[in-house]
């Protein structure tokens, strides 16, 4: 059974005389242990889609199942769900991490004893021991976010929704959160992750779904998507800009030179010939010209805009 099944979700908002089709058609499935990066520009419908999956917004059409249960009709579905929603919300700032974890544990259906036990385990796992008795408003942003993720895990959910989990975090806190997300997925939890930091999505996700104007425009395994958009070409990055004479000499091999420093070459044997000519000029990097998720995202989103 899939951890999440969302089929043909649609949501229209009516504001005064305006009709806004926030989500036109979104269908997703996530099996256990998989991380799906759910990407899209601002206003594309990501947050509305996630909230429909969490049971916070009622879809106009379509259905959601969390391990076979509908969160809009059966509150038991919520026992299997954890969510960290956007911003520095999700927890009580006037309480300590320990108090937050115990309270939300009971709120999510655990007994007081189970909540206490789970709370101590999570405090240790998330490195919050030294701050377990400090009120949340006195913690750093990174610790607050780690605590928000810990609270979402208190009931050992099988589906975790993370909406911009690294937003506003410094480098160290971002790395900590990335490691935690990998560990959580490795333990069998399905994760739906939204982020504008596409390098993080590329690093963490098994699959990517990109939403644009309320519709999913692509949904593939991450590496398959990158492979589809990457060619077989190579790239040499020079440390210094090439002079005009050198550029003209290189162009006789049919290469493409950008900004006077980056040379794009179609085949491997031409690479050796180009390196021969460039010798002994210092170069920075020789690499396969692989697209990253940022370039793919921009191509898809801008391409859809042009259509």
């Amino acid at each position: 059974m899939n951890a999440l099944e969302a089929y043909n979700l649609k949501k229209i908002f009516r504001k005064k005389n305006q009709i806004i089709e926030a989500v036109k058609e979104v269908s997703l499935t996530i099996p256990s242990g998989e991380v799906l990066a759910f990407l899209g520009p601002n206003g594309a419908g990501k947050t509305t889609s996630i909230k429909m999956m969490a049971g916070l917004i009622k879809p106009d059409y379509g259905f959601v199942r969390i391990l076979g249960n509908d969160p809009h009709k059966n509150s038991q579905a919520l026992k299997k769900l954890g969510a960290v929603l956007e911003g520095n919300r999700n927890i009580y700032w006037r309480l300590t991490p320990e108090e937050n974890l115990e309270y939300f544990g009971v709120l999510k259906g655990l007994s007081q004893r189970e909540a206490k036990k789970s709370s101590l385990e999570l405090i240790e796992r998330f490195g919050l021991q030294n701050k377990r008795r400090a009120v949340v408003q006195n913690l750093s942003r990174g610790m607050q976010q780690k605590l928000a993720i810990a609270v979402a895990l208190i009931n050992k959910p099988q589906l975790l929704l993370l909406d911009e989990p690294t937003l506003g975090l410094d480098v160290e806190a971002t790395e900590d959160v990335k490691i935690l997300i990998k560990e959580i997925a490795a333990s069998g939890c399905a994760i739906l992750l939204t982020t504008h930091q596409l390098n993080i999505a590329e690093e963490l996700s098994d699959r990517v779904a990109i939403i644009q104007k309320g519709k999913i425009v692509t949904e593939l395994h991450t590496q398959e998507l990158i492979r589809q958009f990457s060619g077989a070409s190579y790239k040499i990055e020079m440390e210094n800009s090439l002079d005009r004479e050198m550029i003209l000499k290189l162009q006789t091999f049919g290469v493409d030179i950008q900004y006077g420093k980056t040379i794009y070459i179609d085949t491997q044997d031409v690479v050796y010939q180009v390196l021969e000519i460039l010798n002994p000029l210092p170069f920075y990097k020789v690499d396969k010209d692989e697209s990253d998720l940022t370039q793919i995202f921009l191509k898809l989103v801008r391409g859809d805009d042009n259509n």
Partner: protein
Amino acid sequence: MFELFFAEFKLSWIEFRRYPLESLGVVFITTIFFYALFLSTRYIAGPSLQFGDKLDAIIVGYVLWSLVSFVLNRIAFDLQKEAQTGTLEQLFLSSFGATTVVLVRSLANLALQLIVTLGILLIIIGLTGRSLNFPPALILPLISVLMSAYGISLMVGALALIFKRIQQILAFFQFGLLFILATPIDSFTGINLLLVKLLPMTTGAELLRDLMARGNNLDMAKLTFAFACGAFYLGIGLFIFNLSEKAAKSRGIISGY
């Protein structure tokens, strides 16, 4: 459900213990307000004025109003605060359901509210030099008043869920309640008396005045009517809050405007 009640009680107790000035501030303001009115009345009427048990009845009505105001404000205020701080959506993710969480939270807070109200009552008694009866039977009409209070609180909470900021509406309810609870029923006659009896909490408040201020026995017919009113308004409140929750989910406005 008991686990949830205990967790909510613990939450209220932590906030009360950690930020005691908030509760103490309420006690101070509520008692000072009454005492100021009392002193002004005595100044106007002169030192020879004898209040009798009429003042006792007013004290009971006023303190009951302060308790009911706490109950009324609690759900709406909590929802507004949770919407502003962003934890409202986490409450809606609970498998207990939002209505249950909101109601249990408010009930769990009642114990602390009763302690604060008792503090206000004792201070006012001390300042005015009056004395009141505290028969155990007063629990019954008090429960009937609280049932209606929770019903109204849920209705106001339903508005808070949709509109988020309802300070003006809360003020309207608060002072409307003062009229309902502090005005003795025997000052009305005829059709007005009937209409006043159908308002929430009026019969229960009158029973409390009978027991505590006038030293009368408990009127079982009135008590039955008070409980029926309480059940009616509580039922309406639960129904309206449920509808409001569905509307908020349909309009996608649980988190904010």
